[in-house]
């Protein structure tokens, strides 16, 4: 039973990879930009999924980390700092700030924590808007160049898409590694039963801070790609609206499910574009679709798939048990 499932998963993974690599070749620049947005938002949601979905710490601050990452790259670029150095620095800076933001999570949880992180988002927005000497204030920063890698320029839409897709693949592999390690198990324990986890030696304080720091760092890396993607950044792009959108991606995709953010980002980035045929109603149609999805499938899209697979597995197992039982009874009757 396991082997066919693995084969099906392998075929699906290959199909998705082939689509991601080949589909943009047939697209115009706008389509490629939407695909690039999907890669960047998937990455930011991947970080939030680690903090919220795996470690159970709600955060409305993810947009701020995307913003900090974006501004780090935009500010360092004119100083001649190479892209990858700025990219790494964005991650490290967001890791440190995320670690510090984790401290309130040691004292408050759930909606109280949501408000703490919401306040942080507001503070970051105000700093980006008011500190004009550094951030350009409401006028933002324009003409952010796209990077080149070993002489190959990612300046054009298609090149930059493949560049972000490559980085997304590396970050995804890193997060996969973390979540499959004992750290991932400790994060889940923190989400499911922190009191029991603490009694078993899990330093819940350290893992809470780590979950915040890692999720924020990944948000910062996504921001470092966001800046060269849009080539113009301003504070309003990194407010509560984006934080809520990222939260929506995690929940719609399936909180605590590894590929959930990718599916969630598909809904949040692609769906409004697919619904454009409804013209002026496209955002309304999108909102109604999201409401229906959350109402009927609170565990998210992949949560629904998981439930269907569990149902099919348990039905197959009960059928196997029934047939074994009838075989045994017929053997007993024969004796």
């Amino acid at each position, binding site marked *: 039973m396991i082997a066919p499932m693995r084969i099906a998963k392998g075929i699906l993974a290959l199909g998705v990879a082939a689509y991601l690599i080949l589909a943009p070749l047939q697209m115009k620049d706008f389509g490629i930009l939407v695909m690039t947005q999907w890669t960047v938002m998937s990455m930011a949601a991947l970080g939030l999924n680690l903090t919220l979905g795996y470690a159970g710490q709600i955060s409305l601050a993810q947009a701020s980390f995307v913003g900090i990452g974006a501004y780090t790259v935009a500010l360092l670029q004119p100083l001649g700092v190479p892209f990858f150095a700025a990219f790494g620095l964005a991650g490290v800076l967001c890791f440190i700030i995320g670690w510090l933001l984790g401290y309130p999570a040691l004292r408050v949880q759930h909606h109280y924590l949501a408000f703490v992180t919401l306040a942080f988002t507001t503070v970051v927005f105000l700093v980006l808007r008011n500190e004009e000497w550094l951030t350009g204030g409401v006028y933002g920063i324009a003409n952010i160049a796209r990077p080149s890698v070993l002489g190959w320029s990612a300046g054009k839409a298609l090149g930059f898409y493949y560049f972000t897709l490559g980085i997304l693949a590396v970050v995804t592999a890193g997060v996969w590694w973390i979540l499959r390690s*004992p*750290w991932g*198990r400790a994060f889940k324990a923190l989400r499911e039963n922190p009191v029991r986890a*603490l009694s*078993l030696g899990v330093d819940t304080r350290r893992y809470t801070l780590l979950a915040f720091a890692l999720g924020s760092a990944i948000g910062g890396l996504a921001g470092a790609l966001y800046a060269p993607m849009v080539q113009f950044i301003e504070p309003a792009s990194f407010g509560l609206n984006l934080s809520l959108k990222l939260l929506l991606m995690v929940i719609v995709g399936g909180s*605590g499910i590894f590929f959930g953010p990718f599916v969630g980002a598909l809904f949040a980035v692609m769906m409004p574009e697919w619904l454009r045929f409804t013209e002026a109603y496209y955002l309304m149609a999108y909102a109604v679709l999201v409401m229906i999805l959350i109402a009927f499938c609170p565990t998210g899209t992949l949560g629904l798939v998981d439930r269907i697979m569990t149902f099919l597995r348990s039905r197959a197992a009960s059928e196997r048990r029934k047939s074994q039982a009838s075989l045994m009874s017929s053997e007993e009757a024969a004796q």
Partner: protein
Amino acid sequence: MTAVLQVRNLRKQFGGIVAVDQVSFDVMEGEILGIIGPNGSGKSTLFNCILGQMQPTAGDVVIDGRRVNGLRPCDLSGLGVSRTFQLLQVFPDLTVRESLILAGQEHRGSMISRLFGDREAGLGAAAERMIQFFRLSHLAGEKAGGLSYGQQKLLDTAMAFMAGPRLVLLDEPAGGVNLTMLAKLKERLKALNEETRATFVVIEHNMDFVMSLCTRVLVLANGRVLAEGNPASIRANPQVIEAYLGS
């Protein structure tokens, strides 16, 4: 024999209510001490003070000669102290096997080695042994949330033993467990005590379970120690009969 746990004049006060009042006792290495008492006599508060879940108002808790007041439960776990809870505390979304590995992983290596080392933190074989010891082999791949109450109780107890603790505090291990499962649990606990020479402190309301498992019994009433002795002497103690067992 040396004392693994020493409780000295422990007191815990909530406003005007004294839940634990000047409680002192020692637990020797390899001993199984039972703590009994009517509801509200301070048993669970005493456990929570010993285990760092609550800070005592006064008094000392000494483990292996070291005063441990103020240490967090995870630090105590590092000193070889483990526990189970009165209300079931499992990880519903982790499988039986994952739960057991989690229960031991933080005692292996450093944070960095846990990230880059073996995914099972070198505990795969130990988890397998524990699964077999508690006869949970057929459930190893099942999520804890899908197990029956009795099976979860066994898993909860198995988790407490994964890190090879020196001292285990079990809070009402028999609560809500059916008779067949109860006999199995008692037999497993006795076997573990003999095999590992770990020291147990057991809070329990089931008198038959306590009297047949424990080597010594401490009776609490109104937050104070009412009596202490072997199971036979406790059964015969008129004060205990009056306060707890009934006539």
